[in-house]
């Protein structure tokens, strides 16, 4: 029941938070905090096992496996399971949930109950996506995380929020529809080929479907995940959504929602369609590389700070796509690491932008400048996360990008050279961000009310710094944790021969 408890805590917490607004507008955020902290309790035993007893999990892929029946007539099960990969992403989700909560603490003042309901339900949806092993259940959670996110953007967003929210919803909904179709087709074909009607991932895995149809089904799944990642040419909802979303939603969006795309590719596309993904690989890697360069070039010309960070996300997630389809243990480990490191560094940048906007009421790069002389601590953090996003060795992003490029270089040296140019382009936009925002003379009238980071902000940002440094200097535990899940995927080229 551990995994179900993990899933229900934020769902129930959200309901409670909504209801509690009747009594006190400050109560919902406290309930949200408590329920997020409670989510760590079910994780206690698997984490404990891994840290103190590190041989046990190497034997089987699944740390926890909880099958229950749900709709027996279609053989749809409420099957949740957790392996190293999903554990890692859930930990990231919970951590970033706390960060989002910290940034929303003072920022959100209207309809707090409903806000925290949506926040917690989005998180619950994401956790469900990472845990669901039954494909139908996976689809349900995939939808569950979208609707509250839509409300977060369209109610608490900035000036152009309705447009952005609808755009976000249509894009992801179209992707979701495509996934539903591919999902039904997959189950249907599987039924035809084996006579077994099932939505269960583990059973589907044993007999990967073959034939021409497999390629199209794989493509359908892949596109659904590409929209989420986002990869070119489906990226354009992201800058709008990020720019208009409140900081907390931006954090959740960047840190975990995008990661469901990468997770989907690693968990479903690669193992369920080994032949088709080999055929898809070159074009997907090309899309990844184009995304890296395109995103970086777009980031370079933005004048809105949030848009700049959003486009840098597109560039960074291109690396994830590149890593996923390189069929190589280095690249896959790198892709997972990139999901973690990007989740932290980018959401930290969004938190920073939120703080700047809160203080100066602008995100326009041309109206900012010289923040260092006024807010040295905040600017130092900005410098740190800017440097992290350009891939400085010693931080998680470098380890990730290094491994991805190393892994993909072997098979696709030319593509990798272009991808590596992303390192230079990342330096260009990151330095521009730092240069325009923090250096130079201070602009605008002097306002004595503006103060540097308070303790809550300082602790949030500093702990994110430490996680990035830890990822950069001691990534080994994370590699070990996901090793079993990922080596199962790399057998593909050796068996089939590319």
């Amino acid at each position, binding site marked *: 029941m551990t995994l179900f408890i993990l899933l229900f805590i934020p769902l129930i917490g959200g309901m409670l938070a909504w209801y509690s607004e009747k009594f006190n507008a400050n109560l919902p955020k406290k309930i949200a905090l408590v329920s997020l902290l409670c989510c760590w309790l079910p994780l206690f035993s698997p984490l404990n096992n891994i840290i103190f007893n590190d041989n046990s999990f190497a034997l089987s892929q699944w740390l926890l496996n909880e099958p229950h029946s749900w709709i027996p007539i279609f053989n749809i099960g409420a099957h949740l399971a957790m392996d190293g990969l999903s554990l890692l992403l859930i930990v990231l989700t919970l951590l970033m949930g706390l960060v989002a909560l910290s940034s929303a603490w003072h920022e959100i003042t209207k309809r707090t109950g409903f806000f925290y309901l949506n926040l917690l339900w989005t998180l619950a949806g994401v956790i469900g996506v990472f845990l669901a092993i039954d494909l139908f259940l996976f689809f349900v959670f995939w939808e569950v995380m979208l609707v509250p996110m839509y409300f977060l953007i369209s109610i608490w967003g900035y000036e152009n929020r309705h447009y952005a929210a609808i755009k976000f919803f249509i894009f992801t909904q179209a992707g979701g529809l495509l996934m539903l179709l591919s999902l039904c087709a997959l189950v249907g074909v599987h039924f035809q080929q084996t006579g077994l009607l099932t939505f269960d991932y583990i059973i589907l895995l044993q007999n990967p479907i073959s034939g021409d149809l497999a390629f199209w089904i794989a493509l359908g799944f892949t596109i659904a995940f590409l929209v989420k990642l986002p990869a070119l040419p489906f990226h354009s909802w992201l800058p709008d959504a990020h720019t208009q979303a409140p900081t907390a939603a931006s954090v959740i969006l960047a840190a975990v929602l995008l990661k469901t795309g990468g997770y989907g590719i690693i968990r479903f596309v690669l193992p369920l369609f080994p032949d088709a993904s080999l055929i898809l690989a070159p074009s997907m890697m090309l899309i990844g590389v184009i995304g890296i360069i395109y995103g970086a070039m777009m980031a370079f010309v933005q004048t809105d700070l949030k848009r700049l960070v959003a486009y840098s996300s597109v560039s960074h997630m291109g690396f994830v796509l590149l890593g996923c389809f390189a069929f190589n243990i280095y690249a896959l480990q790198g892709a997972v690491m990139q999901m973690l490191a990007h989740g932290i560094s980018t959401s930290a940048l969004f938190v920073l932008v939120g703080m700047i906007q809160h203080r100066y009421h602008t995100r326009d790069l041309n109206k900012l400048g010289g923040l260092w002389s006024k807010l040295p601590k905040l600017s130092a953090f900005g410098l740190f996360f800017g440097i992290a996003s350009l891939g400085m060795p010693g931080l998680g992003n470098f380890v990730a990008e290094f491994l991805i490029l190393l892994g993909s270089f072997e098979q696709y040296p030319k593509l990798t050279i272009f991808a590596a140019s992303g390192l230079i382009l990342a330096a260009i936009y990151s330095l521009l961000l730092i240069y325009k925002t923090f250096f130079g*003379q201070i602009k605008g009238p002097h306002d004595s009310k503006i103060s540097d980071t308070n303790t809550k902000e300082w602790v949030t940002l500093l702990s994110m710094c430490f996680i990035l440094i830890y990822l950069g200097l001691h990534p*080994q535990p994370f590699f070990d944790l996901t090793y079993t899940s990922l080596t199962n995927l790399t057998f593909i080229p050796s068996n089939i021969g590319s």
Partner: protein
Amino acid sequence: MTYYASLLSLIPLLPLFSALILLFSKPNKLTTALLAVGSISGAACISLFLNFVFWQQTDFVLTSNLGNWIKIAQLHINFSLYLDALSLVMITIITGVGALIHLYSIGFMYQDKDFKRYFTYLNLFVSAMLFLVLADNLLLLYLGWEGVGLCSYLLIGFWYQDRDNNLAANKAFLMTRIGDTAMALGLFLLFIELGTLNIQDLQVQALSVWSSSNNNMANLCCLLLLGGALGKSAQFPLQNWLPDAMAGPTPVSALIHAATMVTAGIYLIARNSQLFQMAPDVMYLIAFIGTITLLLGASAAMVQSDLKRILAYSTISQLGYMFLALGVGAGASAVFHLMTHAFFKALLFLSAGALIYSLHHEHNIFKMGGLLKKLPIVATSFAIGCAALASLPFTSGFFSKELILEQLIDSGHTNFWWAAVLGAFITAFYSARLFFVVFLGDSKQSPDKQPEKIMSLVLLLLCFFSLFGGIQPSGIQTLMPKLNASGLTTLQHWLPIVLPFIAISLAWWMFKTNLFGKTITVPALQYFHQLLKSGWAFDRIYQVIFVSPFKFLCQLNKSDIIDLHYRALEKISKLLHKKFSQFQNGKLRCYNASLIIFCVLAFAWFIKGALMS
């Protein structure tokens, strides 16, 4: 040995810890200075002690493992330090010169309100540089490599209120990043070809895997590594960030942009000497690039009027000498020149810093003059620095440059020798010009304060090293195979010794006839002067070829072409919505009319169907 190993790991960790303590605490200026200088001095003492221990030995190796970094399949990367003769020389220079410059900085930066931030960056720099030279694998080296780049960026833009400083910092970071990316690709290729990133294993593997010399793959790997070296060491065609990097505080220019960081490229090639020996084509290219750079830098230094820019171009040119030496296989003399250059160039920069300090931030040499009597210590140290730069006999620069020239002949590259001798002539000329213009002649402004005592002390110490630092450590001679001494002709022996004096006489004559600083009237000459002054116009060329097209391309797509399609989709559906909603206007007349039209059409169609059948 474990005792020595733990001492070894302390060397890079001491400055790192000091930087961390400075970052997270709020000490007063005295504590800051004590901590910063103390940590580097501690590291310097340990390096001196290790020198003392290993002085007689040539084949010693000391290793120390600080922990595991990455271990996936065949990729095993540790935080391991590796000390041999080459890295011992390097850490001695870095910690020794580093400690002196830290000490000097106390005086130079004392009035600055960001005193603590300055020393945090500086300590972090030294630590990263030490990791770079002590790394036993290329990935850890790359960590140090990027780390020094970051600190260089932070220190160039240290006075962040001035946008120009930050632009210079960005330029330095980006240009070196281009080289670094090539180097990263080199790392990937090496790992895929040779299956390891450990530097010593790479040398062994290279010999066995690429059995034949001049293998294409060997050339490609070395070429990619060379890319990194060119960026970091400001060699052609990535040299033009260094003059702008002078925007940082002068002690930073001395430490990072003269003595240590810019020599990282030389270290990289010397460290992988066996690898590079498998790639003779690349070696020739290194020598060629070195020659171009030394002439390019020296010629640009002749016409500059900014004190620090002269020294920057001079650094580029001297680094060119080291590349030339590396390229012809004289690695030991390259490292030797690296060492003496670290001494005398640090001395020159610090003297320049003292000058700037005393003359309220004056950089233009033509606004100085006649300072010999007013600033005697600075003048003395400047004279010694210039003499060593011009390689006058019995200074440290003389021994190292002579060695390079001699080995050029020994390796049979007479063309390169002529170019190097020409470079030496120009070097002596601009050194003399610099000294004459600043210290002799009419006084144009008088200093408002003398340099701090602590600064003078450091200058005197460096004077000593610049004069007597020409004793080559025995260890580094084993770096690269010895070249056969073919013996020099009389001309080849005496020309490099006599030429500097001729150059100085020429400079003296030009100074006496007031030719320096005079506005040039001949158009062709003026054009050439401008060309030289801009460092052969590389900035403008890159602006036209790379920067402007890139900016243009990005601006063109600012509104995201892909997004425009989606917006078009949106517009079309809105248009359709408008068109169709016009039918729904609530007017009964329209509804009636459309009903009748529909009925008529339907009836007509029915009739037509009936008639056809």
